[in-house]
């Protein structure tokens, strides 16, 4: 285990240092940053992006991309919210239905990606539009308010009065994804297919099944993120998760995963998502306007990825 932590630090040295420097700068400019409350806040704000980014890591290592996750978040959130608020369906079933919607979208992406030669960028661009449209059609473009304490607990509750529920999910999903990528056959096959699809085929690896799994998992995670987000906003919003896929991709790339597939780490993505989370939280604390935040975020991504490329070249 000690070895695991050490190798984690060594593999992610660059961005870990970046994250620390970022934290120090923000803490100096506003000491409130380092309070327990705020740090938990950062983790909570990071969580939905982290769910998406974890699954996105798998899809990108596989050599694909999933642009539909932001829209799937909206549909899943809307479906669950509507079932709870308008149809009085038991919460458990409503959540299951929301997740199912996510899984179906993911399965559709996976099926088309596995069985056709359409590039995944195009496939998920299409389902991104379909998903967003579906969310608008279902709600007629209006938010669906939910007045259920149980529903609200999903995304806004605390465990033991301190640990926000979304952070708990984050911990569970990070462990789950780490295990999938490092301890299962599927994980190794994902690296194989992304690293050299021809070699995977010649080795008798079932490429279709691997692709189908990764996209379906991504759909599931997007559905889950959508439900958590809806719960935090006390409503299903058809505009939820706009451009969320881009933050997820940014986290993955910051984490050192190769956009051409075959290489990447779950641990890196966690740090990548934290950098994005710390950045927006910190900029808010310092009082930088949200318009400027976009610009800062863009510059940070460029610098971080460039530094990573340089590091890798000289290593």
């Amino acid at each position, binding site marked *: 285990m000690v070895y695991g932590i050490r190798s984690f630090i060594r593999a992610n040295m660059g961005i870990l240092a970046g994250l620390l420097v970022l934290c120090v700068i923000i803490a100096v400019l506003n000491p409130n940053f380092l309070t327990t409350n705020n740090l938990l806040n950062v983790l909570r704000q990071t969580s939905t992006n982290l769910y998406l980014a974890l699954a996105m890591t798998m899809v990108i290592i596989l050599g694909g991309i999933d642009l539909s996750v932001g829209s799937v978040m909206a549909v899943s959130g809307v479906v669950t919210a509507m079932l709870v608020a308008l149809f009085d369906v038991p919460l458990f079933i409503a959540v299951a239905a929301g997740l199912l919607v996510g899984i179906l979208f993911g399965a559709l992406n996976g099926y088309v990606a596995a069985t056709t030669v359409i590039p995944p960028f195009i496939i998920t661009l299409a389902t991104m539009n379909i998903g967003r449209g579906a969310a608008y059609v279902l709600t007629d473009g209006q938010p669906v308010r939910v007045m259920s304490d149980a529903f609200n607990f999903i995304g806004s509750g605390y465990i033991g009065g301190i640990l926000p529920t979304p952070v708990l999910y984050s911990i569970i999903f990070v462990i789950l994804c780490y295990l999938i990528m490092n*301890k299962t056959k599927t994980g190794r096959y994902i*690296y194989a297919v992304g690293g*050299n699809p021809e070699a995977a085929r010649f080795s*008798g690896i*079932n490429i279709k099944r691997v692709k189908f799994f990764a996209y379906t998992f991504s759909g599931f995670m997007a559905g889950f993120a959508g439900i958590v987000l809806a719960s935090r906003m006390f409503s299903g919003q058809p505009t939820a998760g706009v451009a969320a896929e881009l933050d997820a991709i940014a986290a993955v790339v910051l984490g050192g995963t190769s956009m051409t597939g*075959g290489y990447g780490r779950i641990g890196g993505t966690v740090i990548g998502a934290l950098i994005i989370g710390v950045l927006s939280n910190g900029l808010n604390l310092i009082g930088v306007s949200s318009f400027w935040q976009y610009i800062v975020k863009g510059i940070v991504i460029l610098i971080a990825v460039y530094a990573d490329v340089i590091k890798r070249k000289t290593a």
Partner: protein
Amino acid sequence: MDGNDETTGRVTPITLPSFIEVERMSQKLLRMSGIEKRFAGVHALKGVDFELESGEVHALLGENGAGKSTLMKILAGIYPVDEGEIFIEGNKVSINSVKDAQALGISIIHQEISLVPHLSVAENIFLGKEPVTKTGWIDWKKMIEETRKTLQQFGLELSPEVPVKKLTVAQQQMIEIIKAVSFRAKMIVMDEPTSSLTEKEVEFLFRTIGHLKEQGVGIVYISHRMNELFAITDRITVLRDGALIGTVRTKDTTADQLISMMVGRELTQYYIKDTAPENGGEIVLSVHNLSKKGVLNDASFELKKGEILGFAGLVGAGRSELMKCIFGLDAFDEGEIRIDGKPLIIRNPNDAIKHGIAYVTENRKEEGLFLIRSVQYNITIKVLDKFIKWLRVNARYEDQKTRQFINELSIKTPNPDQEVRNLSGGNQQKVLISRWLATNPRILILDEPTRGVDVGAKAEIYAIMNRLVKEGVSIIMISSELPEVINMSDRIAVMYKGGIRTILNRDEFSQETIMHYATGG
């Protein structure tokens, strides 16, 4: 090959008297002297001298890792030199970039073809130096006209406008050479140019080389194929472990001498085929009338237990295609495959693997290895079932399996976690073979098993094959190197245009017979 290489290097003083004569000759096209290069602790080149006359074909020989590529990459401006001097036509030069090298008339043709597949022949040849009209637009007319002329000069019947991806590998290689020449190259480095060519195409390449010699171009020729070296080179320089072992005139040397210079020990028995299957051995695999439109034509053969069945034929004769059908990578239209006499349906590689078939592809980088992953990952990827159960990984079993193969096949790697791309060609090939041996195959299909592999590793691969057949494994070996097929096979199937033209027994083997059938006779 451990022990003190420096001493063995000194024991083999092959600098012949004739070498001194050459030294006296007028101006050298290229002289590299005392070249030193270190990479993070590795002493890659230890004071190497190398020279090239104009109109000379000078071979650079050595096992993989001997320093040939490093030396040539320094010449090409890819690596900076640590110490030593480079003279071109008597003038001291410093080569700091690929551009510098090109400007000095140095051109390198890599093993991997570096053409742009979607662009036409003309566009590829003129890439980066397109002729322009007065108004600044690309002068297509001139480009196509000049390309047409050059193609004719080299005896290639090709349209300048055809996309390069539609050409055969051999044709693409010729385009590379033309491209090099059109840079007004004074010297061309050819790195294993024949590794994917058929005999006929090789002949054609040799004619081209003759043509270049006449024009005074100097050629550095890197190859492991002895017969080629003796066919076209004037001198041969041997490197071992980064040190210069010697430069000899080709006409004054022998293959045995070269090999012992290369490996630092006598390799008297290069091909070691010391087994023969029992007569009337049982038939493990039989293929009946396999056909696939435009590719395979009524191919039938039988494979006996413990034999090596060689497959000879020209490139495009359908040898790999036939094996891909047997292995379930490609579908076929008609025919039947039987194992132990039982007909079976193979829909995908996993079906074939279940029946004990393994296929080691000819393109280890493209279709075989996961280059950015570890030796261990590559060896175990097909047998994960044996040590991964859900989330439980039996790491000890995995380590043990990996080490077993690293030892048995003497794979030279610092550790099992080394990325495969950092290994030499021969060791990469052994990793790929290990992956398939891990599945305990009864039938092992080896497609060009020694392509791009140095002599030492070649001999080791032959030894592995011998060991396997002794253990009762049956081997199908596709090879375009005739000496290899002839020396290693028990029988040879010769393919021609998708069909099996004949199957020869050992007493009928000869290069002439095989070529006769391979060309449709």
